[in-house]
């Protein structure tokens, strides 16, 4: 199937986000793809608050079945989340389970004032009542396919579709 240009989607997402964020907004990317994306958006939008990154491995709901992800990286939230407007950033929004885990982790840092969600691609098929406020594009992807963001050595984004069973 034809995949949209991730760079163009990223520009579109930045354009939509611009009106929704302020200097005190905390951008939090979900590792790995979402953190790359948050890094780029943070730069484009010239946000004053440093960006954060979450590794949700310790909050996954499939830990009993799938175990610990092999390359867990530390989560970093370099600002006080209490009362803050936070935009969680992920590359692909699918079942919503990853976002659920990310929100649970955020609440262990404090009580955010408001959490919104930005995703480069929304592929639908939610299993939880979660919706994104900022989306680059919506895309229908066959079940059983894994859609994710890739980044080359020059930092350019592209979308990749593979047969691997999608991690929820």
């Amino acid at each position, binding site marked *: 199937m034809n995949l949209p240009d991730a760079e163009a989607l990223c520009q579109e997402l930045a354009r939509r986000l611009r009106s929704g964020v302020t200097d005190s907004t905390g951008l939090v990317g979900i590792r790995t793809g979402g953190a790359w994306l948050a890094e780029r958006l943070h730069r484009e939008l010239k946000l004053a608050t440093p960006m954060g990154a979450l*590794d949700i*491995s*310790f*909050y996954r709901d499939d*830990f*009993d079945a*799938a*175990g*610990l992800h*092999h*390359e*867990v*990286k*530390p*989560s*970093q939230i370099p600002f006080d989340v209490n009362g803050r407007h936070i935009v969680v950033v992920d590359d692909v929004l699918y079942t919503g389970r990853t976002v659920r885990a990310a929100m*649970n*982790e955020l*609440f*262990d*840092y*404090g009580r955010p004032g408001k959490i919104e969600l930005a995703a480069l691609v929304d592929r639908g098929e939610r299993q939880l009542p979660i919706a994104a406020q900022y989306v680059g594009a919506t895309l229908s992807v066959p079940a059983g396919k894994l859609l994710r963001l890739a980044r080359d050595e020059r930092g350019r984004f592209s979308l990749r579709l593979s047969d691997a069973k999608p991690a929820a």
Partner: protein
Amino acid sequence: MRNPQLNGDGTLQHLLTIEGLPREVLVHILDTAASFIGVTEREVKKVPLLRGKSVFNLFFEASTRTRTTFEIAAKRLSADVINLNIGVSSSTKGETLLDTVDNLSAMYADMFVVRHSSSGAAHLIANHVASHVHVINAGDGRHAHPTQGLLDIYTIRHYKKEFTRLSVAIVGDVLHSRVARSLIHALTTLGTPDVRVIGPKTLLPTGVEQLGVSVHHDMREGLAGCDVVVMLRLQSERMKGPLLPSAHEFFKSYGLTPQKLALAKPDAIVMHPGPMNRGVEIDSSVADGPHSVILPQVTFGIAVRMAVMSILAGR
């Protein structure tokens, strides 16, 4: 020979000894531990990974630091923790080790953390329990203390970044030390080129060279130019017969003083698994001095034990 602590796919089922564990398994544990360090600095110092699981701390031998850090680690993973000091209950009434384990398994244990004075006790339990139950060796006799070895290499990596250019000296009562054995296996697996053991002949196991270490009886010669000094506790309670003239004599030859430490590299770190005998194996001015990382070792131990428990439980 099959490694009883590894599953068919190479993942950890139990942690019994560092000996024979591949480098990737050690690095995975250290990397995971690094992620848990951040958790302990947050407002809520817990993650939900082991929610609903029961961890039994089975200590047949006295321990404060190890038992407490295992308890904290399990609680930060949201597990339920049950502490048992078996020395003062069932075994004194004549119950066998495996009967004790069977009874606790009937109480829905998911994980046993075992400390025992007999080498091989944790292996015995691991071979006995159901396949969904995991066993962590928290020290068995003179044999192994793998989580201590792991927190030692975590500490070394934290301060020295990599192992491939390091000189590490392990000093004192190597003969009775399960800590030394676990650390030596970990260091050699990670490619440390220069591991030295220093001590009197009576406190070094025969054939210790076969573990890939160099042997020194002279402290000054052994400490020269090393990056890491690991002092071991003089385990008088494990000594049978006259291995030593006196604690005072031992301190004169093998106690770590500022003068002896000056022979190591200027940025050398000093480690000790605890509990310390001040004035026996280590001088107070070194234990509390700028080279000492003895208390950070304890803190890192929590994250390392969280990493081991979460890797074992997540199958």
